[in-house]
């Protein structure tokens, strides 16, 4: 390429000098005169070569003089002439900056208060040009607005909008365009056109970004605002997108066309000498710092160009509609409690370290311990390996797993005022309690774990203090006589603690350890802590502390693992239990509860706090007999508690007979395990038969009243406390007189509801053939024809498109296609042949034909009919969709259809699809259902299931696939809990009762075992091999809601700190109604195996209350969703 070199004077070079300088030339909006440009470039080149400045331009000087004298009538015109001149003359960077920019600045400045120029297009153009050279044009625009300059010019809004767009402040840009249009800026058409193209660009932008999955749809056009940008990419209004991703933006030209601030050349100070320019400085102008003052009205003076350039740091600007990104990582719900997790890996690693480290400082015990002289390895190298050794301090990174409610720093202080950590305190206390020698004791304090997930474990450090303060000598006694003199107080205060409600639900994952008293003695910690808690001085529910220690001990007891390294004993309770075998083991242990063989463990399971109070009552100062009994062959672990034999017997006995409540003020109330205590202060409560007291967690803690602790099997953590104002559930007409606790396993009649034989027998007994709508087709060919037709339509193709006609019984159907396939059945869409030819009214139109094994078809038919009978009228709408209009039995010879092989159910076709289709429509676009809409569907779902439970049916196969959408009616009014307008015809319908269980067929104490349904929807009990009743449905509801909320299958885990309360694994999003969902999930996932239906109605009310104000929103959301789904179908994205 030819180079423009001042020396060469090729024709081409000279003539096209501008070409080579093109990068340096500031493009002017209005264009330049090419020739002048060329001359200018040449001149500059030559000048540059010669090293001279170009300040001998008389014309320029003259123009300057004229402009600055301010005497002419048209100052603006003078300025414009000057600007034009210098622009032409100094097209490239340096000269431009030297000459043009000051001219622009000066002109702008001087005339800014002149009213007559405020709407002068030329003046505005000067400003825009000036803004283009500026580092921070945003301020200029704001200034102009404050000064009301150019506010009626389209140019202003276009320029501002373009600038904002470049800075990615799309929301703001949008605003500006709109404002301009509002202000009727001239020329309006041009502005409109610019706005339209801006919007067009925005749409394309959002599309691109949604596709690339950067943002959800509802983030829309707003760009996240990022903090802590690097200097390079920092910009003030609207963050730079790239910095969010850490990519550095290249230095872009500054001013209107670029987002980042480029390095600016130092202004030459020679300005002062030229033409008598005055240099404006801060003091003179009193200019406010740019960007800091967003109230443009008070803007007197824009800071000078030079001054503004000095600003290097990004200023915090007002929130201009940007969004701060949340970290893409999942944010756990921040709640009151701090859940501290223990990493099993860390555990293991540190264990190994602990075991092997001798001389390491860590192995030497904490300073405290060493100071106490207890943990000096030099004295006793086997310190940690003997039983009764102090707890080795946790390695950094290990954290005990506990829940804290409130942390009181004062609690951490030891007697000497030295601050200790929990481990130290605990360890110290333990050491004092147990001493270094082995004592074959199982300490009576049960490990109390309030099984309610909601009850935070209070880190009751008062206990620690007390422990620490205790006289060392006193402690061992206390340990041995754990209940000792405290027993009395214990009994008294047991009531204010949650003893009653504590169920010793251990971490089931731990198989018994052949551990010495070490763990047993460790267990004493909790007990003594508990005994502390009994101290009348301490009032708050204390038993939480033991849990902390429990965990600690397990950490401390880690070294006690087997040679085999099975550390699974002290597993995190949050381990997701999903193996049947493990549970089988545990449950088998449970069932041998009486034998003392695994005494410790077993004792855990069956014991509860009542043990202690009971002992308290017994009050013998020496509970040693009891522990001593067991100590022999007892496998005592850290959470072993000792159950006295009497207790055990009593417990078992009571499980077989009604509990005689000892509370004097029982008033003959029958307290069952789900009796809920209503706090006294709820006076005006109307309790009817399905009142359910939703546990208000706080109130649950201190339920007043119950006196002497009786050995209820208070397993239900929901506050089984008999109080005078207990609210009762009389939901079902069962024998209310039998205070039903959750029966021991042995009590339940375990039935496998899916037993085929039983089903067959039952079906036979029903004599289905006599029913209307049941058609028996004995033609042997029918089954084959059907199979062929099915295959044909499944494959698709031309023949299938027209429909394949099949005659079943007397009715001819035209098969159109296959719409679904499951483990048991296939579903086809078909029409009545008669309909295909003519269109008759009274015809649903399309049918869904479900082809499956005869047995299941029959059963489904039966259940559907039964439902119809049992459900109230209002409910029928929901189940109508599952009502088969006909059942065809094929393939058999028998006239009664007994030996039919295939069954075809003919049901109305749900043309709106299933909830799974809805889900898919979201997933396809990478979007998520709005929380409010999930609530709506949840309400619908709960209503449906409530109905069928009320009719004694457990669906057992609830999943989004089996929930049909209803979208009837045209009255789209706002939603309300009472379902006005067409809302009653919208929502969901439950179909597919093939696995349903009719509870009325079974005795009351029946519980079911066996597995059903899809993997992701099997309830916890099924997974664990435990018996279940309604949980199958409750869990499935929770799982379905989870799918809607998260778009993924639910996984459950044990709520940390409990042993049998579950919660979903994925945390709730912060901006959801977390409290609500927590309650809902907790209830749904933690239902007891019970013959009474679960309180779904109350959950629904809970939801409806929350949705009360959202009626309009729900309507809109549902409409949008419907539209989106149709759109997708139209676009051919479906299938």
């Amino acid at each position, binding site marked *: *390429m*030819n180079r423009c070199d001042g020396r060469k004077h090729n024709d*081409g070079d000279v*003539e*096209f000098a*501008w*070409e080579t*300088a*093109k990068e340096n*030339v500031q*493009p*002017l*909006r*209005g*264009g*330049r*005169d*090419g*020739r002048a*440009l060329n001359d200018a470039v040449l001149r500059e080149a030559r000048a540059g070569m010669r090293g001279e400045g170009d300040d001998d331009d008389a014309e320029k000087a003259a123009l300057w003089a004229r402009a600055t004298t301010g005497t002419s009538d048209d100052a603006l015109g003078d300025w*414009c002439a000057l600007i*034009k001149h210098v622009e032409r003359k100094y*097209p490239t960077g340096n000269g431009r900056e030297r000459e043009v920019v000051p001219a622009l600045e000066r002109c702008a400045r001087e005339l800014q208060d002149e009213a007559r120029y405020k709407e002068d*297009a*030329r003046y505005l*153009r000067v400003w825009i040009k000036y803004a283009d050279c500026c580092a921070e044009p945003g301020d200029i625009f704001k200034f102009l607005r404050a000064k009301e300059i150019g506010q009626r010019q389209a140019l202003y809004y*276009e320029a501002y909008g373009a600038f904002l767009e470049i800075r990615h402040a799309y929301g703001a840009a949008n605003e500006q365009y709109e404002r301009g249009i509002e202000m009727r800026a001239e020329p309006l*058409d*041009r502005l409109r*056109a*610019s706005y339209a193209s801006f919007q067009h660009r925005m749409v*394309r932008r959002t599309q691109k970004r949604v596709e690339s999955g950067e943002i959800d749809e509802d983030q829309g056009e707003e760009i996240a605002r990022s903090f802590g940008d690097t200097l390079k990419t920092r910009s003030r209004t609207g963050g730079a997108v790239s910095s969010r991703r850490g990519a550095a933006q290249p230095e872009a030209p500054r001013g209107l066309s670029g987002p980042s601030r480029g390095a600016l050349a130092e202004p030459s100070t020679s300005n002062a000498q030229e033409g008598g320019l005055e240099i404006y400085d801060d003091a003179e102008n009193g200019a406010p710092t740019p960007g800091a003052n967003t109230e443009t009205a008070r803007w007197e003076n824009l800071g000078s160009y030079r001054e503004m350039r000095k600003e290097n740091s990004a200023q915090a600007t007002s929130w201009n509609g940007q969004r701060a990104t949340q970290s893409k990582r999942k944010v756990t719900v921040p709640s009151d409690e701090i859940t501290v997790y223990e990493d099993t890996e860390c555990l293991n690693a540190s264990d190994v370290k602990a075991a092997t480290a001798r001389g390491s400082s860590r192995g030497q015990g904490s300073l405290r311990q060493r100071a106490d002289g207890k943990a000096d390895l030099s004295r006793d190298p086997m310190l940690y390996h003997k039983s009764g050794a102090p707890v080795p301090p946790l390695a950094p990174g290990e954290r005990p797993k506990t829940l804290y409610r409130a942390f009181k720093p004062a609690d951490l202080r030891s007697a000497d005022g030295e601050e200790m950590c929990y481990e130290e305190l605990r360890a110290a206390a333990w050491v004092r309690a147990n001493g270094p020698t082995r004592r074959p004791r199982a300490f009576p304090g049960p490990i109390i774990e309030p099984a309610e997930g909601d009850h935070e474990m209070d880190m009751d450090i008062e206990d620690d203090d007390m422990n620490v303060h205790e006289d060392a000598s006193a402690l061992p006694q206390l340990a041995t006589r754990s209940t000792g003199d405290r027993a009395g107080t214990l009994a008294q205060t047991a009531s204010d603690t949650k003893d009653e409600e504590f169920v010793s639900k251990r971490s089931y994952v731990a198989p018994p350890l052949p551990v010495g008293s070490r763990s047993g003695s460790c267990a004493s910690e909790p007990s003594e802590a508990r005994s502390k808690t009994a101290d009348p001085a301490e009032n708050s529910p204390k038993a939480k502390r033991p849990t902390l220690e429990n965990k600690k001990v397990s950490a401390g007891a880690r070294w006690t693992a087997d040679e085999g390294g099975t550390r699974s004993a002290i597993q995190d309770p949050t381990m997701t239990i999903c193996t049947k075998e493990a549970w089988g083991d545990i449950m088998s242990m449970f069932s041998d509860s009486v034998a003392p063989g695994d005494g410790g463990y077993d004792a855990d399971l069956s014991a509860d706090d009542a043990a202690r109070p009971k002992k308290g009552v017994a009050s013998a100062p020496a509970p040693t007999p009891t522990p001593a009994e067991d100590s022999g062959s007892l496998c005592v672990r850290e959470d072993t508690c000792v159950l006295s034999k009497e207790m055990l017997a009593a417990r078992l006995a009571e499980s077989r007979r009604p509990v005689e409540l000892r509370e004097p003020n029982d008033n003959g109330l029958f307290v069952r395990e789900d009796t809920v205590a209503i706090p006294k202060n709820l006076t005006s409560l109307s309790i009817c038969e399905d009142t359910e007291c939703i546990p208000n967690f706080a109130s649950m803690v201190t339920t007043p009243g119950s006196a002497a602790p009786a050995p209820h099997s208070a397993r239900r953590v929901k506050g089984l406390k008999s109080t005078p104002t207990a609210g009762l559930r009389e939901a079902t007409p069962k024998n209310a007189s039998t205070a039903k606790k959750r029966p021991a396993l042995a009590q339940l009649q375990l039935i496998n509801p899916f037993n085929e034989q039983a089903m067959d027998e039952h079906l036979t007994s029903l004599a289905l053939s006599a029913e209307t709508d049941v058609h028996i087709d004995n033609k042997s060919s029918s089954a084959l024809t059907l199979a062929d037709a099915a295959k044909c339509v499944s494959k698709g193709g031309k023949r299938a498109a027209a429909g394949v006609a099949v005659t079943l019984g007397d009715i001819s159907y035209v098969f159109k296609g296959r719409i679904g396939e499951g483990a048991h059945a296939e579903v086809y869409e078909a029409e009545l042949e008669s309909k295909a030819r003519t269109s008759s009214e009274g015809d649903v139109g399309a049918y869904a034909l479900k082809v499956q094994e005869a047995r299941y078809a029959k059963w489904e038919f039966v259940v559907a009919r039964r439902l119809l009978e049992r459900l109230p009228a209002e409910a029928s709408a929901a189940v109508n969709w599952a009502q088969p209009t006909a059942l065809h039995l094929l393939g058999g010879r028998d006239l009664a259809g007994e030996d039919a092989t295939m069954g075809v159910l003919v049901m109305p076709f749900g043309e709106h699809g299933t909830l799974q289709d809805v889900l898919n429509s979201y997933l396809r676009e990478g979007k998520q259902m709005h929380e409010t809409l999930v609530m709506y569907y949840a309400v619908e779902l709960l209503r449906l299931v409530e109905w069928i439970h009320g009719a004694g049916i457990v669906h057992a196969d609830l999943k989004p696939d089996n929930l049909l959408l209803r979208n009837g009616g045209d009255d789209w009014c706002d939603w309300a809990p009472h379902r006005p307008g067409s809302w009653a015809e919208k929502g969901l319908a439950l179909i597919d009762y093939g696995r349903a269980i009719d509870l009325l067929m079974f005795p009351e104490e029946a519980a079911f075992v066996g597995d059903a349904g899809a993997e992701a929807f099997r309830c916890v009990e099924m997974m664990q091999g435990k018996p279940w009743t309604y949980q199958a449905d409750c869990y499935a509801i929770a799982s379905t809601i989870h799918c809607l909320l998260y778009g993924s299958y639910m996984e459950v885990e044990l709520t940390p700190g409990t042993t049998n309360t579950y919660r979903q694994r994925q945390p709730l999003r912060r901006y959801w109604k977390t409290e609500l969902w927590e309650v809902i999930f907790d209830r749904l996932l933690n239902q007891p195996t019970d013959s009474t239906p679960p309180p779904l109605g109350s959950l629904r009310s809970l939801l409806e209350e929350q949705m009360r104000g959202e009626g309009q929103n729900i309507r809109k959301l549902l409409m949008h969703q419907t539209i989106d789904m149709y759109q997708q179908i139209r676009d051919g994205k479906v299938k």
Partner: protein
Amino acid sequence: MSTEPASKAIALRGSTDHVVEFFGYAVNSVLYQRGVYPPESFERKSKYGIGVMVTSEPKLREYLVNVLERVDQWLMESDLRKLVLVLADARTGATVERWAFDVQTDGSKTRRDGENAGDANGEETMKTEKTEKEIMQEIQAIIRQITASVSFLPLLDRECAFELLAYTDKESATPDECEESDPKYVRDGVEMRLRSFSTKIHKIEAGVSYKTDDA
């Protein structure tokens, strides 16, 4: 001798190809640079040693292809004098820019009637010695210049429509798909000459006239 007409034909053919190709790219470049069509509808192609933007919009392509076909025919018949690309305001119709490509044909080389004896006496102009490479470079230069013209061309913020005008010999007939038109000069425009390139037979000069918005 007998090869001369043939070789000339080939030369003409070759040259015409160059020219037409150049026109194609040049027009595309202008449309891209001046923002007549949205930049997304263009794709980058490698040509002349640089990347040139050509439109991927089917209708536009079709139109251009057709026009250039016609241009090609005219060139082969040595009828084309000028090809002009006019950018006009979509609403008002006023010409805002006018890119003119003058075509000078070396008549001696293209005379259909084999009367080239007169020229065949070694009056080789320097044009004949052009190599492919040189031609390429020259074209490259022009295309580059079109890009560089941003330094002096005004911002076209209005929607523009473009037209292609062809100046032909007075004698040649107007084809059906074209219509007679006025030159569509730019009023009060500034004219800038751009580079030129030449092949053995043709010399193309480029220039642009535009309006500056001197306020």
